[in-house]
């Protein structure tokens, strides 16, 4: 849905169409429109600039107008919503329309239906995902955009069934949406084929057979929120296929088949909230684990604990691990000269949040550390609400690690400080 070359006049045209609606909406009982204007700026602090067309000290510089329009029926439980951002990228001086969500809701009996572009989040991890197989924008996350931008909408159909025995949620997604990953234009990052300029991408075609299915069954069992999950679709992070490993001239990004089966549980315990989640990633295109281009199957789990420390202060800790299957097959098939992953990868997170002055100030610190990779990401953040409308957030992303190809270590030269200012209307 992100289209890069939109003429400014097109945006003006859309705005002119919408603005009378805004005025009209305020007088109509069945429509409301609101939104915000936001500026997001993130500057690299390492004094280095990646080469390329977008070479700049900035990882991010943009202004964003959010319009969120809702209409609903008085006689039946039905509603429609469009949540769109009109974005000006100051680095490239390009305009863009980011349709965050656009859907129609209808409720009847025990069923809730949603058709259209929508955002979904599953699982119990704090910024660690196992059964949340939905698309994510890692560029937004690594350059300090507000957290809601970590999630990307997907175009599909959702059915939810609610009852006392079991609740169920089924997503049918015919249109594949990959994760948005950092590119060498704006990030220093690890690329095993950095010397190969020719690139191609093969996304799963929008065929009936490629339609992604994601199912969650959930209910409360005694005092525990329990969910089980099943997903059939594709890895959202691309795999790389060189035309040959010895002297590649073309590298193709593709998205191998994936199924995920998992469960999660969350309950109030030990004076806080205890979370557990696990999942099995079945890499269907590499069942034997001997294809070096495709990730092996793996098991993932996490445990988390969150509690109140004192008034308006909270603490969260998590331990997350990935265990690769058929590790010896992976080792034996890895081409020489390429980094070798460990069989057991883990991450520890630590979060502390503190609210001050009637919650107008929020201080927070999120730390990721991987014992297996010996790398880290630190995310300190300060937010202040000037009023109910105006808020500002100042923060940083600090990366480090022993090796330049690990998850966080590869971004060592991308340490950044960001500022985000938002005015709600």
């Amino acid at each position, binding site marked *: 849905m992100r289209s890069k070359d939109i003429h400014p006049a097109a945006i003006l045209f859309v705005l002119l169409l919408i603005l009378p609606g805004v005025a009209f909406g305020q007088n109509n009982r069945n429509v409301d429109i609101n939104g915000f204007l936001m500026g997001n700026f993130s500057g690299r602090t390492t004094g280095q600039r990646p080469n390329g067309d977008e070479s700049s000290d900035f990882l991010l510089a943009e202004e964003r107008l959010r319009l969120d329009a809702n209409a609903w029926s008085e006689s039946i439980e039905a509603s429609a919503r469009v949540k769109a951002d009109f974005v000006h990228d100051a680095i490239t001086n390009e305009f863009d329309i980011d349709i965050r969500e656009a859907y129609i809701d209808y409720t009847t009996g025990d069923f809730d239906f949603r058709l259209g572009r929508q955002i979904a989040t599953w699982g119990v991890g704090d910024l660690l995902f196992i059964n949340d197989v939905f698309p994510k924008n890692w560029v937004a996350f690594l350059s300090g955009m507000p957290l809601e931008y970590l999630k990307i909408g997907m175009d599909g159909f959702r059915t939810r069934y*609610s009852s006392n025995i079991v609740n169920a949620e089924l997503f049918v997604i015919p249109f594949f949406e990959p994760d948005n990953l950092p590119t060498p234009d704006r990030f220093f990052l690890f690329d095993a084929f950095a010397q190969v300029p020719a690139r191609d991408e093969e996304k799963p075609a929008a065929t009936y057979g490629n339609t992604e299915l994601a199912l969650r069954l959930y209910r409360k069992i005694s005092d525990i929120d329990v969910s089980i999950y099943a997903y059939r679709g594709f890895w959202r992070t691309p795999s790389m296929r060189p035309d040959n490993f010895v002297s590649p001239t073309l590298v193709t990004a593709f998205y191998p088949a994936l199924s995920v089966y998992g469960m999660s549980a969350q309950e*109030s315990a030990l004076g806080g909230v205890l979370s557990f989640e696990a999942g099995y990633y079945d890499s269907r295109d590499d069942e034997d684990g001997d294809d070096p281009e495709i990730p092996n*199957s793996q098991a993932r789990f996490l445990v988390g604990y969150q509690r109140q420390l004192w008034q*308006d202060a909270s603490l969260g800790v998590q331990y997350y691990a990935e265990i690769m299957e058929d590790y010896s097959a992976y080792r034996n098939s890895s081409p020489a000269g390429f980094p070798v992953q460990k069989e057991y990868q883990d991450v520890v997170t630590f979060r502390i949040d503190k609210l001050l002055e009637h919650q107008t100030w929020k201080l927070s610190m999120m730390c990721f550390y991987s014992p297996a990779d010996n790398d880290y990401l630190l995310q300190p953040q300060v937010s202040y609400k000037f009023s*109910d409308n105006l808020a500002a957030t100042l923060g940083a992303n600090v990366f480090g690690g022993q090796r330049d190809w690990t998850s966080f270590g590869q971004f060592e030269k991308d340490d950044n400080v960001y500022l985000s200012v938002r005015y709600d209307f």
Partner: protein
Amino acid sequence: MRTKTYFVAILGFVLCSFAFAQEAPSPDKPPGKEPETQSSSGAPLSAKAIIERSQRAFYYAADDMKASIKMELVDKDGGTRTRVMTMLRLDESEGGNQKYFIYFHEPGDVRRMVFMVWKYPEKEDDRWLFIPAVDLIRRIAADDKRSSFVGSDFTYEDVSGRDVSADSHTLLREEKTAGHDCFVVQSTSKTAAEYTKRVSWIEKKTFLPIREEYFDAQEQLFRVFTADRIESITVGEGGNKTGWPTVTKRTMKNIKTGHRTEVVLNSVTYNLELKDDDFSERRMRRPPSSWIR
């Protein structure tokens, strides 16, 4: 492929437990509940009984409730922030378990958020927050009863009530305040609390708190609650009409900082016949339009 087998086994087990898990039946509610008034036998009430009755009058009126709430946070210089929400409450048993559902309309950064509490007087509450921007429901830690509710001068405990047995209560005197005949009860906290001592003026007729003074560890007054408007909300029709006295305007003022919070309840409705299912993940994600419009 061994891991896969384990997973399938675990999932199968969880799936089975879904089928066998039974919801505990909710206790029957006494039909046709009426507001309690002063002890009819004429026997003097103990301080604890007064506080218990007061909690029931203030937090447990009728069987369920829906209200629009406007909360104004006013700092010492007069700067104002506003929170607008819809609150629904269901009592499972009188003085016992309750469920709360709070939907935020304003300000913009919390619009459509829903906060749900299953309150248990005997143990820690269950709390969930729905974050609409990412369509996520997460459980939140409930050990922070003293923390501020949405930045206001009210704590979580002020919003849903404090366990009566967490304090020891003494009847100090009976006196008239702001035109109401009141019991004056002192409550001293036995467990960790935001205050060490609370003095409450409780109206004899309705058992509603008219004024509360909170004292800190240095025995200094730091917070004052006042009931600024009491209305009788009518329930039922014809001969079955009952009026529930309700504090529809209240203020909590922090004496030390000069910050205060004024709360106005509009369109209070009792006995809507809310159901247990209304306080669910489903309703958090998609509240019926009759609740929120």
